[in-house]
């Protein structure tokens, strides 16, 4: 099977021996590229990676994430982003350039437990992920319901060209803010729609690795 575009892999499995670049959850051993996680391998262009079935979120620059404020210093907030890394949101990002650590109270804008839609502005091996809310549709989330799924399954929730998420939003009359870190905020006026959307997210989380999951979600949405 070595060389197939998608295959289920266990840690230590040889994914390919071709001239590819080893990316996430893979390691190069001589000419062989091995998996380091349980998941589905993916060969795309010149790179190989494994999408793990479970696990925490590994931040990438430009990712859209949903974070939870857990603490703050005099200069920045600390956000939990379902990762082994803590997201940092600098106070100047919210207060603007004339932010003063003495005069401004960070909790007046974001307090412990508040949910925030943010984007990863910078992240590498030398620093924790730096977040920003300086964009359209970013900032504090006041209403909605929090759901979560494994970060590797977020693409399944979105679907091809956003087809799955659009189907959920239309049939449930709901809006889903899907963070790349696996946290999803669902807002809907109709409580039944909300429950249905939650059920769809849960279905995808439980069965994203199985064949025909999009069709099963669609039929659930149609039958109610």
């Amino acid at each position, binding site marked *: 099977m070595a060389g197939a575009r998608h295959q289920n892999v266990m840690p230590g499995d040889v994914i390919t021996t071709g001239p590819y670049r080893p990316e996430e959850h893979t390691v190069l051993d001589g000419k062989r590229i091995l998996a380091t996680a349980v998941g589905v391998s993916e060969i795309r262009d010149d790179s190989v990676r494994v999408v793990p079935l479970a696990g925490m979120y590994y931040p990438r620059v430009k990712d859209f994430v949903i974070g*939870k*404020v857990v603490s703050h210093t005099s200069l920045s907030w600390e956000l939990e982003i379902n990762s082994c890394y803590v997201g940092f949101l600098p106070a100047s990002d919210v207060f603007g350039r004339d932010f003063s650590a003495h005069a401004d109270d960070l909790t007046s804008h974001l*307090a*412990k*437990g*508040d949910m925030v839609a943010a984007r990863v502005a910078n992240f590498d091996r030398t620093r924790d992920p730096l977040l920003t809310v300086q964009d359209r549709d970013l900032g504090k989330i006041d209403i*909605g*319901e*929090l759901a979560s799924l494994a970060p590797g399954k977020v693409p399944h929730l979105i679907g091809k060209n956003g087809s799955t998420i659009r189907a959920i939003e239309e049939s449930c009359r709901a809006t889903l803010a899907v963070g790349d870190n696996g946290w999803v905020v669902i807002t809907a006026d109709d409580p039944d729609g909300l429950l249905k959307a939650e059920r769809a997210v849960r279905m995808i989380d439980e069965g994203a690795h199985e064949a025909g999951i999009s069709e099963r979600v669609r039929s659930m949405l149609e039958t109610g």
Partner: protein
Amino acid sequence: MVHKTIIDELTRSKITKMLGDGRRADGRGMEEQRPVRIETGAIPKASGSARVFLGNTEVVAGVKIQPDRPFPDVGDRGIFICTAEILPLAHPDIETGPPNPAVIELARVVDRGIRESGMIDLSQLVLEKNKSVMGVFADNSVIDVDGNLFDACSYASTAALLTARIPKWEMRGDAPARVEGEEYDAPVTTIPASVTMAKIGDSIVVDPNQDEWSVMDARVTITTNSDGNVCALQKGGSSGFTYDELVRCSELSVSVGSRVREQIRAKGAAVRGDG
């Protein structure tokens, strides 16, 4: 750094808003306990053991019974000690190392409920007065945390004790000696059942799950015995209960507790010789 999970504001506002309408976020009734599942004999090497699921909370209790020196002030009674431990895999907040005050409280509340109900007739566990008695140790290990560990540990310990077989020991000369192959049922007089209730705003909910536990203002754990009498009570949290609320809670502890007690009793009847 000890990381403490902070409940997000979205969940908090959802719980409080729904309680305002008389509903709970997980769809239960205000006075409805999560499903309780009890398996006995979970640890083959223990004298008695039980595994209890309270919703997604999971606890394993094991009972070890062996001769011990009695406490100096009660030389005519056996020893009963209940402990509790939360395994680090049970919840992200839990760290290895010495127990924190919440875990110490957990062990004490479970211990007190069983001790004060007089479940085990300790006077029957004396080998020689003031010298040697049988010690009963009930150890709880929390496998999965989803709120209300008090009740889960209490049910697990009670079921483990009820189904425990006490190895027979007798005094030979100065020292206790094991009578090989002989054991008997634990001398049980009553079956305690603890019920924990949380106060969130003005609402009182039975058996709070982890989310409700994180937002509650106060809690009370009431243990009743088989006669429906209150025998132990523990109140926690910064807020308080009014007189009427406490009366309501004690009534709830009797009605909810009696259902769980029947479940534990049935498990015991399947194992014990006296039915």
